[in-house]
């Protein structure tokens, strides 16, 4: 039997841990535990000298298991695993005890905190002896890419990938490409034609030999894993199967329907229209009321359905600048028209947007601030049928005011596509409470998702403007091209494994697996795990009645020993 030689390292984390935990006392206590060869404390274990200390000790003392008690393993587990690898030890012979986030930062009694730290370290020591060596695994990447959604983000990414010579399958549910941008007349902040921009992009996409376009199509099923996905695609006529290595979701968003906001009377009061309606009007080249006349007074109301808990809590991001665009368009088309811009906060984020605001405020416009949380304006139809009156409390003056207008443009919010949940389920990713797809990390990785090989870009992640959508699309394209260039990708090691000697073939495991990674081998009469499909959740292991299926790195005896460890120390010192 293997002799365990464990090295235990307790980190001070400067004063972060040492302030609340008697680090030296922990070291003394841990030294007494069986199999512990050495126990040390150090100022900063994650620093280079700290890691070198581990490497040196492994070589000198022939350590074969390492425990570090420091911050959260979510922070520095990869760092220390790397150190083990450098010393020639398998990185999985390592366990971390979290004595910062879950001890020193949350407790106030130094004696109890020290006792808890001892317990957690003891648990890690007990656990680590059961650790097994696990080896990295790689899979080949299929060079094709599936892009769902052919809006400005989808097409930009498709062109980026296809231009480097890789195949792209571009799926669109409508009968033409272009998405939301196709419905817009001019772009802010430079007021150039949206149609020109998008038609060039559509032309390039359609003509590209490496982009296969599927319009009026939908995806019925996605199976597989990073590098080796398969999808079933159907339109009215046929169903086909595609093979690809990465997925980019760029399904965009849709407009909010303001008719549920009682105050605004959309669809009830004539000449109250949405920004989408107004955009159509601008596209046609004539701003007119329902009676065909040019309006003398136009009111624009911001935040319709945005930033209000009753509708959508988030900012729709583009409406403020779109409203400024309208003001410019109205004042050039109808210079005599009075424009009232009823806003909640003017959000001019993005290059040259503040400048657009500054220049627009010199036009024939009056900016009036309202409270979009508690006091929405009320639109009432006047007796003459030609004008409406808008009543609200103006925030900057505190006065209750009213406005007479011939036309009201509601700057409607944008919201996630209705079928986002469905797509999320197909691709194995998740949506947030507003229905937008969740990125892997909100700051450090806003392009990838928690499922390997699935990326998101554009407004399906959150509302954004055209440049931001394109930036994200091209970032996703770069990530996908990087995996294609490498040819293979590392996959999850901590998967499930079946002990065929014990397995009775009841298939309980297969029924609970969310990834269909477990299949039944008719010949051997046992279950088998496809380790490439398996993501290592361990649900099968806890379902197995005979204990035949093991969740690597989270085995029963590893966890049970950890329980023993954390509780033993509790009783001993209590």
């Amino acid at each position, binding site marked *: 039997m293997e002799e365990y030689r464990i090295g235990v390292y307790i980190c001070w984390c400067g004063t972060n841990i040492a302030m609340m935990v008697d680090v030296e006392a922990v070291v003394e206590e841990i030294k007494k535990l069986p199999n512990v060869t050495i126990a040390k404390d150090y100022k900063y274990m994650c620093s280079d000298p700290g890691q070198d200390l581990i490497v040196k000790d492994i070589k000198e003392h022939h350590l074969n298991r390492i425990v570090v008690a420091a911050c*959260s393993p979510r*922070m520095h587990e990869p760092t220390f695993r790397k150190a083990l690898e450098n010393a020639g030890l398998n990185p999985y012979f390592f366990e971390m005890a979290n004595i910062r986030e879950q001890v020193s930062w*949350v407790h106030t009694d130094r004696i109890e905190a020290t006792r808890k730290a001892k317990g957690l370290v003891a648990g890690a020591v007990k656990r680590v002896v059961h650790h097994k060596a696990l080896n990295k695994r790689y899979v080949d990447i299929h060079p094709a890419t599936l892009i769902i959604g052919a809006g400005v983000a989808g097409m930009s990414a498709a062109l980026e990938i296809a231009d480097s010579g890789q195949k792209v399958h571009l799926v669109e549910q409508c009968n033409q490409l272009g998405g939301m941008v196709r419905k817009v007349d001019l772009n802010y902040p430079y007021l150039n034609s949206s149609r020109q921009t998008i038609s060039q992009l559509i032309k390039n996409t359609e003509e590209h030999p490496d982009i296969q376009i599927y319009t009026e199509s939908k995806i019925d099923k996605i199976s597989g894993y990073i590098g080796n996905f398969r999808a079933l695609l159907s339109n009215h006529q046929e169903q086909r199967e595609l093979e690809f290595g990465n997925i980019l979701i760029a399904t965009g968003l849709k407009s909010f329907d303001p008719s549920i906001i009682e105050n605004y009377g959309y669809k009830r009061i004539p000449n109250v229209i949405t920004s989408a309606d107004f955009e159509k009007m601008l596209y046609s080249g004539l701003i007119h009321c329902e009676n065909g006349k040019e309006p003398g007074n136009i009111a624009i109301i911001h935040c319709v359905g945005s930033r209000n808990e009753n509708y959508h809590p988030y900012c729709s991001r583009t409406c403020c600048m779109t409203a400024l665009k309208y003001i410019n368009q109205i004042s050039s088309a109808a210079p005599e028209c009075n424009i009232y811009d009823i806003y909640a906060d003017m959000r001019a984020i993005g290059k040259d947007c503040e400048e657009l605001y500054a220049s627009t405020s010199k036009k024939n416009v009056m900016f009036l601030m309202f409270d979009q949380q508690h006091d929405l304006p009320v639109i009432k139809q006047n007796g003459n049928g030609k004008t409406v009156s808008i009543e609200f409390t103006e925030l900057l003056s505190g006065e209750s005011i009213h406005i007479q207008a011939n036309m009201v443009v509601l700057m409607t919010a944008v919201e996630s596509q209705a079928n986002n949940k469905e797509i999320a389920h197909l691709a194995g990713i998740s949506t947030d409470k507003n229905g937008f797809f969740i990125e892997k990390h909100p700051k450090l990785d806003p392009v990838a998702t928690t499922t390997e090989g699935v990326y998101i870009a554009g407004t399906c992640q959150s509302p954004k403007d055209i440049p931001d959508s394109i930036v994200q699309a091209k970032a996703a394209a770069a990530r996908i091209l990087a995996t294609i260039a490498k040819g293979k990708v590392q996959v999850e090691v901590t998967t499930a494994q079946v002990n065929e000697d014990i397995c009775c073939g009841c298939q309980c495991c297969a029924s609970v697996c*969310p990834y269909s990674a477990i299949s039944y081998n008719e010949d051997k009469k046992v279950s088998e795990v496809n380790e490439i499909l398996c993501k290592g*959740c361990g649900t099968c292991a*806890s379902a197995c009645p005979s204990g035949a299926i093991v969740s690597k790195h989270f085995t029963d005896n590893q966890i049970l020993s950890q329980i023993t460890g954390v509780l033993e120390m509790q009783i001993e010192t209590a």
Partner: protein
Amino acid sequence: MNYKPTIIGFLCNWCSYTGADLAGTSRQKYEDKIRIIRVMCSGRIEPTFVLDAFRKGADGILICGCHPGDCHYHEGNYKCLRRFHLLQKYTQQMGIEKERLRLEWISASEGKEFAELVDEMSEKIASLGKCMVKETLDTYR
């Protein structure tokens, strides 16, 4: 004397363990008798772990998973929920009070909620007193 119960927490790596880390980074203070064990998914938590922890002297067990619909592995938390209901029936029959075994949903952003949950559970179990499973088993051993 005020009895402080020992609680074992099984926390999902993706949501509640991160939530507990957030409680740390935002310096939320809570009862120090809780010992947290990380699992990849609440679906991994076996009845054995819970029973074993009671046998080794835990006064309460707290299982935390992702909110419904948010599971990193799609539906591990639902599996956990089903097991939990059965397990709680069983532990109650063994004479372990219902309050000693809890399942709660804590997301990665709910550090404060986690801290409050620990305090609240701790208080509840303190009023029940020590869990006698270990003593009883030790006596018969």
